[in-house]
């Protein structure tokens, strides 16, 4: 078909209603957070902004976000039962209406605690048609869309750290589609977001994790 639009962009995706931005996008945001914390979540504080805050009950955004935290996909009919599933999984969820300032109207901030007390702060927006963008991870300003397999690292901001990772990836034949680096203060902690064309094997992650400058390395799969 003409341009980049495929027939399946028009007829599809298969999803649970009622709204691609308030439901499907919300599931995907939850799923991103689940992958970033990378352990069983025991507590979730969910801060809702803008149109998410105004309409979250009617659109089922609340259950959709929780469904994502539980790892359900956007077409899983159990999305509407997510609160019950959360209870069964001993996941405690609270919602708080907030004003996050000048951000997209469909924005959520997750404050998660995992079973080992690991914490994650993640903020993201549902930007239409089920597409999402993650804008903040643990205080770092980022930009992750979840359309590629994505590597998210936290490391000491020092010369050579980035090159070490890109060298490892290229050695294993993994092509970088997009890459961004963010830091809070020079010479302190930095984060690197690498979106790749190929799948990154868990063994490659282990090699990167073993690098002395790296405190955390997470692989986020394409979220659907």
């Amino acid at each position, binding site marked *: 078909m003409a341009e980049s639009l495929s*027939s399946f962009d*028009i007829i*599809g995706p298969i999803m649970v*209603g009622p709204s*691609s931005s308030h439901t499907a996008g919300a599931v995907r945001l939850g799923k991103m957070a689940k992958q970033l914390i990378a352990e069983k979540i025991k507590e979730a504080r969910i801060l809702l902004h803008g149109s998410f805050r105004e309409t979250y*009950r*009617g659109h089922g955004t609340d*259950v959709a976000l929780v469904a994502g935290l539980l790892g359900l996909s956007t077409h899983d*009919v159990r999305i509407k039962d997510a609160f019950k599933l959360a209870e069964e999984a001993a996941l405690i969820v609270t919602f708080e209406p907030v004003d996050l300032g000048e951000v997209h109207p469909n924005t959520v901030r997750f404050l998660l605690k995992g079973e080992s007390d690991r914490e994650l702060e993640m903020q993201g927006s549902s930007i239409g*048609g089920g597409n999402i963008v993650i804008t903040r991870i643990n205080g770092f300003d980022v930009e992750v869309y979840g359309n590629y397999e994505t590597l998210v690292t936290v490391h000491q901001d020092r010369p050579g750290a980035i090159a070490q990772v890109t060298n490892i990836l290229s050695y294993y034949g993994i092509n970088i589609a997009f890459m961004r680096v963010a830091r809070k203060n020079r010479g302190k902690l930095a984060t690197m977001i690498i979106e790749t064309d190929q799948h990154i094997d868990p063994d490659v992650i282990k090699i990167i994790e073993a690098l002395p400058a790296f405190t955390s390395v997470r692989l986020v799969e394409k979220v659907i």
Partner: protein
Amino acid sequence: MDWNTLKGLAEEAEKQKTSLGNLVYRGETEDYDGPELDIYERMKQNWLVMKEAVHTGLNKPQKSRGGMIGGDGAKLHIYANSQKTLSGLIIEGVSRSLAVAELNAAMGKIVAAPTAGSSGILPGVLTMLEEKLQPEEKKIIMSLFTAAGVGSIIAQKASLSGAEGGCQAECGSAAAMAAAAAVELSGGSPTQAINAVALSLKNNLGLVCDPVAGLVEVPCAKRNALGAANALVAADMALAGIVSVIPADEVILAMGNIGRIMPETLRETAKGGLAQTPTGIKWQEHFSKL
């Protein structure tokens, strides 16, 4: 050939003595590096979910998430089966479209076509025609490619989003897509199919997006219902040989232009139209107190 206009597509299809759907399907397989079967199977998957949605929507009606709607598709279906209706077969397509739109609002599984808000129109029209015409499955799958081809050109030349272009872009596009699919499924020519697009879309021009309390419930479900009626009537008109004076491609451009000058209050913000009627405001207040 010209892939960017409906006229170009229809001319090419006529030249090759094939359908629009076949042409779109072949274009799709050319761009694709996997096995050809996958493209067909993927669309078939969409079709099966559409059928399931019609079935669930009609037989297991539920209240919507927000609680404003639910059960009207089933009600209409029973009515249509128990007496002679004023609008004949149309109402059977309409009841199914309504049932799917209600299922969407109740967090059921649907296929965005082109959006979740307008997801009832195509399945309602096509499952009704499947029952009446009993075509082989392949013809229905190809008619979905016809619909996708129409939608893809509307997306490029105008918009498929209510927030961008009002409901004419969502339910209006869905109806136009369904009209073209219905023409091809009934054995009409590609030129007739794009005439159905023009006839259908012309009558939805200017349709605003004004959902009560911002939820995809009111008026969305009923716009799906009447969108299906529009699609079927436009298809019949085109099959009868009626030609739209303004060609489909120009109607699409007009729709895009109207969308661009439509005030923001009428583009999904719930700040105008039905959302701001006394009843709409009452619902909005009800949700804000929850």
